[in-house]
């Protein structure tokens, strides 16, 4: 139970505390409620150190298990293992999930436990990411290159350890990378199923085609026996050729046979009538013997004819048989050829379907790879993005001071044209529109507009630039005619030109879109020098402590004196004058690296 002192300190009753604790432990409790519950436990245990531990781990809102599950879903297996038949991850997927796990685990450890609690390799991972971001900014690179490695690391460690804004931005980037819509590999699995089905169908169709092909080949060969000079063809040809002669000889033989048979019957009757009295009559006996001899001759002829007829009939039967066989073989061959063609078409269709399915699978896999690679890039870019946003926010902090100054001037302005111009200077280089890169619609530097305006200023000169600003960002602030009139009005330009250019140079410096080379070009013109002076004077008004060290360094009293002194020389105490002026315009990104004006004054 909490002590009375504890109750009075928090102003809550014992029931309220207990209810709160229960609420914090309830399954549906929010992260905040859970944190409060854990802190209450630490107090109840008289263990404030446990409370600090809870505090260090709080706020990340990170559910490690959920994130791990999400990773395994995003890189779900989508390749068939040839041995087991189970789905497995590809080697590339294994590599990707490892990379994402490394990035997410290190970042979540950092967000949950703080930089100090990380292992040395994990610290190095974060340091490298942060340093890479810093080195992308020219001043950051110059500053860090001028620092000894230990100091460089100390500054990065300090930012990662104590800057809540760094942690906050990295956490936002972490949430963005891990809580977007889950990757879905349904398309790949559907394509894989189609491909596997097409492979199975192809196997069946291939088998069916091979069977049909074999049957056709057999039938073709059988039919082929009746073509060319093959045995059956020759036999059939001969029989067909002799068919008419055979038929004629068969008919003649049959006719002769009939004649002989009649004669034979006649002789037989004659022989029977002679035989009765031939025993006593030599003449009759001789006649009987002659008739018998003739009868025997006839009988032999008949037998011979019968045999010839049999042979002829057998040959004709063989002919019929061969012709029937040939017809049957040809019909079978033709029928099987149709079957073979059908099977071949089905086989070719299956081959085409397999190729189509294979191409669809490849496309789905490629599309999935693009998504998976984007997932890897997002995970590996968490720290880069978070730290980058931290730098962007820092840039916007500088912008806020300038805007506040412009707003105050605008509100005092009585002239409509000047008021409109100052209003344009307020928002021209900001954007708060929601976009793919700005989901919350936060005010951000419109770097594209800054870049476009700088090009116009450097190439078109002050009049073109001022006219463009007067017409407004969307072109609807003033008409072209009115803007031209104002640009041609010496009184208007005398008051507004330096303000407009001075404001822009401040913004361009904040946006890191102004180089020493640009300053060198501006220094060669009166309007450029006047714009630089105005911009530095604005900085001096907003934050005199930032400008004073430079004035002291130059041993001058005013910004105008400083610019005049610098404009006549190329180097000042070993530093390029244009670079010196650039730092005088603003620290830019250096401010975010825990830098002071000493860094800006450091010989670069």
């Amino acid at each position, binding site marked *: 139970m909490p002590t009375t002192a*504890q109750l009075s*300190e*928090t*102003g809550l009753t014992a029931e309220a505390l207990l209810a709160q604790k229960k609420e914090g432990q309830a399954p549906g409790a929010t*992260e*905040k409620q859970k*944190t*409060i519950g854990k*802190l*209450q436990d*630490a*107090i109840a245990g*008289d263990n*404030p*150190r446990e*409370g*600090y*531990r809870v*505090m*260090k*781990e*709080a*706020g*990340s*809102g990170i559910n490690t298990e959920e994130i791990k599950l999400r990773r395994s879903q995003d890189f779900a297996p989508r390749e068939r293992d040839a041995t087991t038949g189970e789905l497995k991850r590809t080697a590339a997927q294994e590599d990707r999930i490892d990379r994402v796990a490394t990035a997410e685990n290190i970042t979540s450890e950092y967000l949950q436990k*703080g930089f*100090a609690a990380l292992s040395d390799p994990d610290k190095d991972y974060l340091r490298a990411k942060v340093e890479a971001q810093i080195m992308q900014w020219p001043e950051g690179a110059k500053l860090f290159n001028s620092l000894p490695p230990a100091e460089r690391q100390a500054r990065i460690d300090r930012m990662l*350890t*104590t800057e*809540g804004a760094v*942690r*906050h931005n990295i*956490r936002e980037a972490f949430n963005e990378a891990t809580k977007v819509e889950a990757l879905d590999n349904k398309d790949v699995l559907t394509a894989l199923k189609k491909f596997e089905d097409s492979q199975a169908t192809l196997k069946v169709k291939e088998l069916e085609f091979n069977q049909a092909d074999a049957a056709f080949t057999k039938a073709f060969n059988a039919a082929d026996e009746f073509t060319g000079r093959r045995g059956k063809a020759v036999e059939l040809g001969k029989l067909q050729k002799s068919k008419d002669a055979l038929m004629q000889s068969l008919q003649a033989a049959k006719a002769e046979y009939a004649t002989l048979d009649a004669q034979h019957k006649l002789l037989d009757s004659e022989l029977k009538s002679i035989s009765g009295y031939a025993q006593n009559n030599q003449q009759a006996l001789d006649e009987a013997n002659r008739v018998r001899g003739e009868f025997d001759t006839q009988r032999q002829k008949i037998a011979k004819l019968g045999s010839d007829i049999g042979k002829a009939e057998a040959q004709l039967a063989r002919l019929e048989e061969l012709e029937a066989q040939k017809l049957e073989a040809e019909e079978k061959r033709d029928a099987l050829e149709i079957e073979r063609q059908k099977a071949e078409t089905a086989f070719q269709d299956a081959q085409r379907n397999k190729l189509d399915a294979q191409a669809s699978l490849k496309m789905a896999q490629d599309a999935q790879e693009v998504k998976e690679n984007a997932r890897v890039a997002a995970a590996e870019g968490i720290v880069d993005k978070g730290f980058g946003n931290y730098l962007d926010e820092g840039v916007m902090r500088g912008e806020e001071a300038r805007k506040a100054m412009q707003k105050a001037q605008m509100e005092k302005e009585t002239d409509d044209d000047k008021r409109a111009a100052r209003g344009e200077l307020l928002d021209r280089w900001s954007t708060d529109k929601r976009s793919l890169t700005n989901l919350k619609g936060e005010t951000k530097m419109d770097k594209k507009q800054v870049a476009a305006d700088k090009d116009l200023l450097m190439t078109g000169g002050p009049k073109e630039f001022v006219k463009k600003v007067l017409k407004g960002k969307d072109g609807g602030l003033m008409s072209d005619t009115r803007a031209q009139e104002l640009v041609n009005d010496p009184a208007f330009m005398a008051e507004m030109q330096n303000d407009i250019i001075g404001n822009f140079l401040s913004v361009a410096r904040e946006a890191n879109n102004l180089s020493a080379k640009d300053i060198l070009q501006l220094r060669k013109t009166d309007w450029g020098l006047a714009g630089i002076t105005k911009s530095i004077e604005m900085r001096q008004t907003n934050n005199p402590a930032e400008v004073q060290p430079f004035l002291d360094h130059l041993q001058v009293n005013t910004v105008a004196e400083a610019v005049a002194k610098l404009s006549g020389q190329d180097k000042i105490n070993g530093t390029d004058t244009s670079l010196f002026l650039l730092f005088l315009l603003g620290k830019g990104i250096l401010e975010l690296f825990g830098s002071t004006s000493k860094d800006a004054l450091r010989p670069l």
Partner: protein
Amino acid sequence: MRKNQDMPFTDEHKKEVEINLVKAVITGLEKDQLTEDGLPEIADTILARIDTITNQDQLAEFLTELSAKWPIFENILHIELGKVKSIKEKEVARDVLNLANSGNIEEAIRLAKTMTES
């Protein structure tokens, strides 16, 4: 009169302050004066300093810095400053009484005035 730097920061007192710091964090969370994002930084800041404090002056300095960054700790600062003041008042009262008892009335009145003016 004892100076604050002579007033040791005992382990018991340290724990009491630390418990109050955690309780202030709870209150801050409940009243949405803090977000969970900021908690690690608070914990790091406290842990980096709390064990180096050896006397009440250092504690007051630490709590002042802490309160400047996170106003939720102002109450603890006031409580601690109040304790210092209370101890000082008791000591002065005792000194005033001693001076009065020894007949040094003018000095006793001057000393008493320093407390009412502070």
